[in-house]
């Protein structure tokens, strides 16, 4: 068991490392492509040389990010095949189909339109070039769509039926993959990319102002960046609200972990600031928080859009307790019962396997029937104790707050920058605000990554919600191999990151010394 858990843990660390590095590049690609599109549209409409220079400058930064980031996501697919082969087989075409579409679309759209975007100046018409720029932005978002559809399916598996003969989930309704979870997740991720790129553009523009270089260019860029960032941030918050409702509906345990909530209630408050008690477990009487400041009704409103709604805590979910709209306690399927049903499903699968070996059709049919009856809790069969089905509360709780607090800070920052840009252009003189905007840029990445940590750590121990925990999804690989490749990836990605940052700094510095104003 210890060896198994070591492989699982290292494989999870490796996947987390790869995904976190990959996500350093993706949101900037998603957002900067839109900002470049807006600037080029302004150029095509006005014919102004200033907009053309601005477009080309930001396009060069987009190109650097795109080039360094491209293919970093492929590593995740390598890991599926090697470290997570049980998972890869089990999810079947449901995961494979969106990823295949993503690969084909990304390849054709990006290789075609990115080439026109960079090489097509003066060779194709202005409008065709503009269309290519926008299609690059659309292509990047479409790529994200398929990845996020696949990810959402792992959080809320729908549109499939399990086939024990093929030992995989077979898609029976393609459109079901576009669930509320998937739609919210897609827009939340894409709009957060707009917000991130907006903050990046405002930060770099602020550096130009601090250095007193290309001031007109910097102010023009800051305006586009701040508007895109603000739009992105507001839409991120709106879709984040939608995501919270989906989580409450389909992953109540994740919501409870996000809140560090063990015993839920109606009119449940939301902890604005707090410290979770590390000694708290679902079955002891310790306090949930060492200290907390609560917003009354907050969690009920956030999760169910109803101030009176009951929000279950970890203990309630484990014990299968709900309170309905009329205030009566009702029982749901508790975790002990889920574990029992999961073990029955496993037993049925073993019986199916034995029957298949001797080609006993009636025994196979009987085993399959029992499997179907218990399949919705298949994954719980891997647990011996309900404790194993509780996600890490501390990291989920704090990551959620880091995301929300930083997100709120950036909303205020972008509003302040916009006000400063339009009211007597005081942003131009407000050195303190320019410094804040510049220093804040890395924190936008922390905010964005924190969101992913909430989504992915909060759903533990599952790779596929309720069906496949990480410990069952793993392949029979050696710990030493996983540790070796973990450090290799850490080294490669760090080199890539250093390369990106240094090339980008050089390009920004070089750009600042040329005339970008007109």
């Amino acid at each position, binding site marked *: 068991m210890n060896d198994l858990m070591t492989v699982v843990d290292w494989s999870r660390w490796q996947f987390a490392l790869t995904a976190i590095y990959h996500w350093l590049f993706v949101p900037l690609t998603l957002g900067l492509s839109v900002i470049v599109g807006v600037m080029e549209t302004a150029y095509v409409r006005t014919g102004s040389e200033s907009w053309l220079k601005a477009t080309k400058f930001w396009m*060069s930064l987009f*190109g*650097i990010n795109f*080039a*360094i980031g*491209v*293919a970093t996501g*492929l*590593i995740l697919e*390598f*890991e599926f*095949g*090697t470290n997570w*082969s*049980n998972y*890869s*087989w*089990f999810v079947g075409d449901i995961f494979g189909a969106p990823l295949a579409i993503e690969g084909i679309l990304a390849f054709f759209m990006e290789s075609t339109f990115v*080439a*026109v975007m*960079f*090489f*097509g100046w003066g*060779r194709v018409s202005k409008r065709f070039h503009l269309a290519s720029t926008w299609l690059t932005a659309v292509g990047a978002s479409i790529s994200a769509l398929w990845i996020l559809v696949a990810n959402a399916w792992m959080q809320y598996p729908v549109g499939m039926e399990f086939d*024990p*003969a*093929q*030992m*995989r989930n077979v898609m029976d309704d393609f459109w079901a993959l576009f669930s509320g979870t998937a739609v919210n997740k897609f827009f939340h991720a894409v709009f957060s990319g707009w917000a991130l790129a907006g903050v990046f553009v405002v930060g770099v523009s602020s550096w130009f102002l601090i250095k007193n270089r290309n001031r007109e260019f910097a102010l023009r860029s800051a305006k586009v960046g701040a508007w895109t960032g603000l739009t992105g941030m507001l839409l991120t918050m709106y879709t984040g609200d939608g995501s919270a409702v989906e989580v409450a509906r389909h992953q109540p345990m994740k919501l409870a972990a996000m809140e560090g909530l063990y015993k839920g209630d109606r009119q449940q408050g939301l902890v604005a600031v707090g410290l979770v008690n590390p000694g708290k477990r679902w079955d002891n009487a310790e306090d949930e928080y060492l200290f907390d400041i609560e917003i009354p009704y907050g969690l009920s409103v956030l999760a169910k859009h109803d101030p009176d709604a009951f929000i279950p805590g970890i203990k309630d979910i484990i014990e299968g307790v709900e309170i309905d709209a009329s205030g009566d306690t009702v029982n749901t399927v508790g975790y002990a019962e889920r574990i029992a049903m999961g073990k029955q499903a*496993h037993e049925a*699968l*073993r019986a*199916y*396997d034995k029957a*298949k070996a001797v080609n006993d059709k009636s025994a196979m049919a009987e085993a399959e029937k029992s499997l179907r009856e218990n399949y919705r809790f298949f994954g719980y069969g*891997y647990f011996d104790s309900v404790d194993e089905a509780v996600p890490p509360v501390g990291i989920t709780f704090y990551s959620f707050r880091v995301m929300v607090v930083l997100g709120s800070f950036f909303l205020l920052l972008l509003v302040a920058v916009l006000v400063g840009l339009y009211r007597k252009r005081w942003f131009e003189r407000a050195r303190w605000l320019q410094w804040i905007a510049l220093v804040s840029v890395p924190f936008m990445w922390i905010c964005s990554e924190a969101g992913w940590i909430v989504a992915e750590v909060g759903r533990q121990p599952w790779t596929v919600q309720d069906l*496949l925990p990480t410990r*069952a999804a793993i*392949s*029979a*690989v050696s710990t030493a*191999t996983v540790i*070796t*490749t973990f450090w*290799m990836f850490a080294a*490669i990605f760090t080199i*890539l990151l250093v*390369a990106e940052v240094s*090339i980008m700094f050089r*390009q920004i510095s070089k750009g600042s010394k040329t005339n970008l104003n007109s």
Partner: protein
Amino acid sequence: MNEYDVRSSESKEDYAVEGGRLRRFVRSVWSLYCDGFRNMTVGKTLWAIILVKLFVFFVVMKLLFFPNVLKRDFDNDSDRADHVRKELSRPR
């Protein structure tokens, strides 16, 4: 010249025109990429990074460290399914 011959010669001309257009299109796409690569400044460094990265990912990492375990160890899907069934239903 009958009606068939007229149609036939028209369609030959159409093909010739279409072929010419296609050739011009392919040539212009080719030169777009060639000239684009030739005139790159910072892009040359980036392409070098991309190529080294792809080599490391696909040749070093994929071939040496990241085999597809099920494809490597089993010949057909039925055997893979049997293996995964045993793995996932194994008492733990």
